[in-house]
């Protein structure tokens, strides 16, 4: 079986969860004997042996359709679909055009062209940025289309100031698709409610975590002297950093010997730092800014607890990464990952008291910390990408059978 897959980013040239998920999924598909041609809008220097890549800007006739270099201005405005965002001035290759919609349109044109030249049975596209390209590919090839929803505009914006243009593209993609894969039941529900799609069309395939290329690092010195509670994610409305600091305030009243580490950047960064100072917590907080690669693992490793108070998290791969570093996690019920993770603590994002209660409990009751760490890191060992890939392969087969 051959799949033409439209993506937007791929590690290490990714800004977050979407790229990580694409890599995990395609690796799993390889193990399930599914052949994938992975399309990216522009050429990046990747060293991946399990995939064939096609780069949009190398494609005949349309090369450098828009000659633009500046990076990702669109990201900080119309979409925050990733788990982490590039901080300003970050040295990354110029992936995309200065205007995101321009880039999406360019990709759409290429999509059709690629479909003419490639040999495949089915199209699989990840998130709204690729939908137009994938729809064109479907039109030209007449093959079935699967779209994979990692996040919707409603998650990114918290339901306020929905970008109408993005919404329209999402809705069109969902309607054109023969089958929709949602990363959680939480997301499936949003697709049903906000886009009017019939539930039968939507299959849930949860994300997973890769253990390849991963080794436990040293434990940070800080952990040896203090209890450390970590927030790691974009400092935006969606991730609930404000709930984290309100909970921190309550925690520090009950458990003074604690340090809160905040890793990440985003549009709420200044407001959060200011608020922490106002609440008199400056000496309890460490802001690390945006972290990448090994530094992320080090942050997880120094923490006694990783907290993800997301307001709306379609999946949320970071708790799995934290557990991979043997750090227990407390996550909001408003997340897809809470559907598959059992050995962790959960609370509603708005319930600051409950977040504080659970944070203090982990700091205070060592047996709880140890039990969560041991059982949680054991549990995620079963959450590898082979299972979700198998589910995708089943969905492909089902569609192809129906077509004949």
């Amino acid at each position, binding site marked *: 079986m051959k799949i033409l897959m439209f993506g937007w980013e791929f590690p290490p040239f990714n800004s977050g969860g979407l790229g990580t998920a694409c890599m995990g999924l395609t690796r799993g598909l390889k193990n399930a004997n599914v052949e994938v041609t992975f399309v990216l809008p522009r050429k990046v220097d990747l060293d991946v042996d399990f995939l064939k890549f096609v780069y949009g800007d190398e494609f005949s006739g349309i090369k450098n359709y828009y000659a633009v270099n500046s990076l990702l201005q669109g990201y900080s405005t119309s979409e925050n679909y990733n788990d982490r965002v590039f901080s300003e001035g970050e040295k990354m290759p110029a992936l995309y055009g200065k205007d995101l919609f321009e880039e999406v349109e360019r990709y759409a044109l290429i999509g059709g062209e690629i479909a003419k030249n490639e040999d495949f049975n089915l199209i699989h596209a990840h998130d709204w940025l690729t939908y137009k390209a994938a729809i064109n590919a479907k039109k030209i090839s007449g093959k079935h289309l699967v779209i994979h929803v990692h996040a919707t505009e409603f998650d990114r914006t918290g339901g306020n100031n929905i970008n109408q243009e993005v919404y329209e593209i999402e809705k069109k993609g969902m309607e054109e698709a023969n089958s929709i894969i949602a990363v959680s039941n939480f997301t499936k529900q949003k697709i049903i409610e906000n886009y009017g799609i019939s539930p039968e069309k939507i299959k849930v395939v949860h994300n997973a975590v890769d253990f390849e290329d991963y080794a436990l690092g040293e434990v940070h010195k800080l952990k040896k002297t203090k209890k450390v509670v970590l927030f790691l994610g974009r400092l935006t409305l969606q991730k609930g950093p404000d709930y984290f600091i309100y909970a921190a305030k309550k925690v520090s009243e009950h458990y003074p010997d604690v340090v809160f580490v905040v890793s990440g950047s985003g549009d709420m960064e200044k407001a959060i730092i200011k608020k922490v100072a106002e609440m008199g917590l400056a000496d309890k907080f460490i802001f690390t800014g945006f972290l990448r690669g090994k530094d992320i693992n080090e942050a997880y490793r120094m923490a006694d607890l990783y907290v993800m108070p997301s307001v709306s998290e379609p999946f949320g791969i970071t708790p799995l990464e934290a557990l991979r570093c043997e750090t227990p996690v407390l996550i909001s019920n408003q997340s897809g990952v809470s559907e598959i993770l059992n050995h962790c603590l959960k609370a509603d994002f708005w319930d600051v008291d409950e977040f504080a209660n659970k944070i203090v409990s982990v700091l205070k009751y060592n047996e*709880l910390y140890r039990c969560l760490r041991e059982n949680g890191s054991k549990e995620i060992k079963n959450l590898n990408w082979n299972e979700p890939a198998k589910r995708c392969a089943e969905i492909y087969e089902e569609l192809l059978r129906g077509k004949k």
Partner: protein
Amino acid sequence: MVSVCFYFQVHQPLRVRKYSIFDIGKNNNYFSDNSETSLNNVKVLRKVSEKCYIPMNALLLELLEKHPEFKVSFSFSGVYLEQLEKHAPEVLLSFKKLVDTGRVEILGETYYHSLSFLFSKGEFFEQVKKHEELIQRIFGKTPRVFRNTELIYNNELAKNIEGMGYIGIIAEGAPFILGWRSPNYIYSPVNTQRIKLILKNYKMSDDIAFRFSERNWAEWPLTASKYAQWINSVNGGGEMVNLFMDYETFGEHQWESTGIFDFMRQFPEEILKNPDNNFKTPSELAESYPSRGVFDSPGFISWADIERDLSAWLGNEIQNAAIKKVYSLGFKILKTQNSELIDKWRKLQTSDHFYYMCTKWFSDGDVHKYFNPYQSPYDAFISYMNVLQDLELRTDEILNEKKLSVGKFKSNIYKENSLTNKRGDFNGGN
């Protein structure tokens, strides 16, 4: 001759409400929760009463009136009867009516459905005594056969229970102890004089309690006449079949729609069709049949899970931390002589609290197997430990007021890894 012996366990714990770190020192209400969740004890009691206690008691009364040979037995926890007195007196009355037939026996257990035998002998004796008094007050009976919480049993328990005057004790017919032998006979515990051991036939009990509604079970649907054939076939290979199960099997675990009530309605008649069969209560078994062998269980067994050990309550670090903590408070709390505080502390010893912290099936997501009113075992632990913090705070306050120093008494309480050897008593300090 085959005697069929029913014993139904009737128990509802006082589940600890959602109790946060912010409640400590401010809220001494540990058990009442008026939420819509299964932590609302009154709500659970009402629900189970409607589905099980009321219809099943009515059915048993009907059967007892219809068949003079029919007999059953119950074991009620004290915390359960307390809840009935307070919130469902009509249910209690219907149990009394059953007992008034003279063919319903009541067994002895610990008042608080606790694991106290494992952690404090003194506390255990207190709770058994308190249970005896309660049964005497409510039903006017004195239990003669004992069953420990969750059928937790070892040689030492049997010896202690014999010393307390019981003529019989109940245990799981654990295959790894019985070996080739059958649970369908009376046995003698090691190193005892007279006490008779009555073993649960777990296979035939579980056919009713667990497999009854399983559609992929080869014997489904199970009818009373088919079951009676199985009982008949025991003739010659056993003297009794002991069917021990949770009373909630009827209507709560197995819903009415599974046909469980109809099965029971037919049951006595089908069994009694064979003149070689009869019904007996546990004390009648102990009095009518001789011991056919010695049952040696130096380690603890129970009726829980496939393991039939203690791992459902003491299988992980949080469970052990919680139970260690509650028993470590014993000496101080008893010292206060504050009956309200002591009662709360004992209610926190109920085994269910630790069961809810069990993590062994949690990963499989098998929620049916693992009924838990908490969102997770960790949530159960957090509320429980926070409550103990509050309890300790209040205890210290009272002791300070009384200007009593507990420091000079050396408490000889639970020590880690002491499950199988020495365990101290609290009454040493008085």
